[in-house]
């Protein structure tokens, strides 16, 4: 167990007081400390949004990319250097809106990446438009008569798409969340931790109280995360009771990077750049 302070940063968060992102920041730090992963051994990739500012408030290798694209950037990074721990931290807009295609494709690739989604069911940074996870009927600046789309179900999508680790956390319970994130990082393969994150400014429905009244922990009810079909069904539970915890987990599936022929001899980044002259001559011979 490392001291979480090593991840501290001089930068003060610009999040609103009470924002659910604070709990996620603390949970990420706690999970890394628990797993004894040093700041240079992990790289965090984010998109753009309130939540995506997270690594700016840490001391850690990071890349704040563009809105919606942290997953492919992280995938390229993982393939270049599989030895680094790779986290993606992004908003629901980043992940299930503009970036949803990358999300879908990552599920079936199974790179050893942990995706933490700050799911506040709203577009925070752009001032409160609705999000793909907004519940039908939600009134926002772009849906003054209420959203007419059915909300996207990230967990059911992930399970269907081939994810090997699917969990949901609640930023109001950072300890539980830290445990989930640590489990996700330990998992070999792609892991999703969708986090119920209250946005105290723009989401007046899914508040701390809303969740506190509803969430319960799967592991406390003896949930078996090995059953994919049951997990899919469970992912649909959203009402008076909202489950958090690990919905689905399967170990032993090969990771993406494990299957790439070019990586058999290790990370690309540690090998000399350029070709062996003989290898080059062999290439030229193909054209002779």
């Amino acid at each position, binding site marked *: 167990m490392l001291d979480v302070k090593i991840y501290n940063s001089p930068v003060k968060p610009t999040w609103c007081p009470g924002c659910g992102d604070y709990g996620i920041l603390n949970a990420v730090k706690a999970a890394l400390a628990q797993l004894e992963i040093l700041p240079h051994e992990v790289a965090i990739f984010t998109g753009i949004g309130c939540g995506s500012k997270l690594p700016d408030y840490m*001391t850690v290798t990071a890349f704040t990319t563009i809105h919606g694209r942290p997953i492919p*950037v992280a*995938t390229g990074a993982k393939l*270049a250097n599989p030895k680094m721990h790779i986290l993606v931290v992004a908003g629901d807009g980043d992940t299930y809106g503009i970036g949803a295609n990358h999300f879908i494709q990552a599920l079936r690739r199974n790179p050893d990446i942990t995706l933490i989604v700050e799911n506040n069911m709203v577009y925070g940074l752009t001032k409160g438009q609705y999000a793909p996870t907004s519940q039908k009927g939600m009134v926002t600046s772009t849906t003054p008569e209420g959203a007419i789309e059915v909300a996207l179900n990230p967990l059911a999508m992930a399970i269907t798409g081939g994810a090997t680790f699917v969990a949901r956390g609640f930023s109001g319970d950072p300890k539980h969340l830290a445990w989930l994130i640590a489990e996700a990082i330990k998992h070999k393969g792609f892991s999703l931790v969708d986090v119920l994150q209250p946005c105290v400014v723009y989401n007046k429905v899914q508040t701390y109280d809303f969740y506190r009244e509803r969430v319960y922990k799967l592991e406390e009810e003896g949930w078996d995360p090995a059953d994919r079909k049951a997990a899919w069904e469970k992912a649909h539970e959203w009402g008076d009771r909202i489950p958090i915890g690990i919905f689905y987990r399967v170990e032993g599936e090969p990771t993406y990077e494990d299957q790439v*022929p070019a990586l058999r001899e290790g990370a*690309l980044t540690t090998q000399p750049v350029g070709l062996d002259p003989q290898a080059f001559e062999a290439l030229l011979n193909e054209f002779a």
Partner: protein
Amino acid sequence: MAESTVNNMTIRLAGEAGQGVDTGGAGFAKALANAGLWVFTTSEFMSRIRGGLNFYQIRVADHPLYSHVEPVNLLLAFTEEAVSEYAGTVVPGGGVIYDQGLKVREEMVARNGVQAFPMPLVKIAQEVGGNRIMMNTAALGAAAGVVELPFEFIAEIIQRNFRRKGDAVAEANLKVAEAGYRYAREHYAAGFPWKLQPRKTSRPRLMMTGNQAIGLGALAAGCRFISAYPMTPASSIMEWIAAHGARYKVVVKQTEDEIAAITMAIGAAFMGARAMTATSGGGFSLMVEALGLAGMAEIPVVVVESQRPGPSTGMPTKTEQGDLLFVLHASQGEFPRIVLAPGTIEQCFWTMVRAFNLAEKYQCPVIVLTDNYMAFQARTVLRQDFDYTKVEIDRGALLTKEELEQMEGPYLRYKITESGISPRALPGHPKAVFQACSDEHDEYGHFEDEDAENRVKMQSKRMRKLRTALAEIRPPEVYGPEDPEVTFLTWGTTYGPVREAVDILNSQGVRARMLHFVDIWPFPVDAVLPLLERSGRLVAVENNGTGQFAHLLRAMTGREVDDRILRFDGRPLSPDYILRKFEEARIHA
């Protein structure tokens, strides 16, 4: 019989997709190269997988070639349509080889002194090889027979190409080719004035396409990562590298789209792998946002943009140079980028090596602009021009482990420097903890999107890299006499056609000169200005409809071109086309 012309002709194979026009043509070209001849091939394909009408065209000579030419001396037509469509391209005295079974009216072919060479190709194939698909092998043999190329060169290439299908197949094809050869030689060789004779070569040669040269250059430069999404004419870059990925340890990823393609490459480059992507204009459109990310976060990434005619889906299998201004200005805001447009197979190779070096030295995106014409052309080149000892890997200001360990104070990823270049550290080292950032940021990489002073410093720092880079940007190649009457201003893949047009004009007593640009951005303005002073008539030659380079030249120098020779019908420029337009302009002037 007319006096014969040795080793100076063009052969066109034409037929449906799926009939082996491409592979047959490439095999024949290779045979000629093996015979010590210089070869230049081009092709034209339809956007369909079977049927239609494609051609593959081989120009061959005793001297190095830089371009195709339009007139055809010998046409191998695999279908009736191939005869009717292309017989008109054959010069007087030239010939058309086709199967007797095709419904071809001989008079149709024999117009304007063109000779019809009907032959029982299918019959030969069936009798000797047992298989009517081998008809094209018979035709290739026949072509060699007509031009009296010693059969051994055809034999060798058949052995090589069919070996992997088993000895029996190779043997059968050999027999079919030989029968075709014999038939043609007996019946038609005497009347056909173009001949091909093997030459001894002292300097070994290679034959490769533009896309292969790009792939080879990438591998030579130490590219370890390519993520791309298929798009004609760029697809074969990824495919060629994929075929070598396992052996040469290059991660090759076909992605879900071009956004993922470039962003994955950016992720790999961030980690320290030399990384690239390759696409055409439509795919590049989707990469535009991430190009700016590479500019802002200072990630070295190489993007090959292989142009085809737009707008939009356009003409997927044709050629154009219509994306120059687009790639120069793509993405919001202002940031350094480097744009290079190779003009020859050799330049494709060396440009890729430079592209990876420049990308890492200036920590910015480098765009290599090429097109369908370059992608699919094949040329014989000298092996010595691909001398690996001349390949230098320069990773720029990349901090070594030792340097990092000795570093005092925190590492500043975006340190403000005079050159604009901030020493780069790769993630994974305890000292290299930093943030790369698409938002405006401070020297560490933290968000700083408020402070005006920091903004000016950072933006100026980034833009200074372009000024620094200018020192190693190369001036245009000047080809042709001092004190020209006319200067052809051109860039990228038009090199060959313009160079050959210049040669012809000079041989006709016109003092013509070429200025050819590979390095386009940052624009080498100081090198260009004196060249414009003594240009004579300045004529832009571009494979697009508006003269995009001429626009750029005027923006950068104020000099307007006197004339434009443009082509935007999907076909490449050729020396013939350039001379025709030049003549027309002269008449109208």
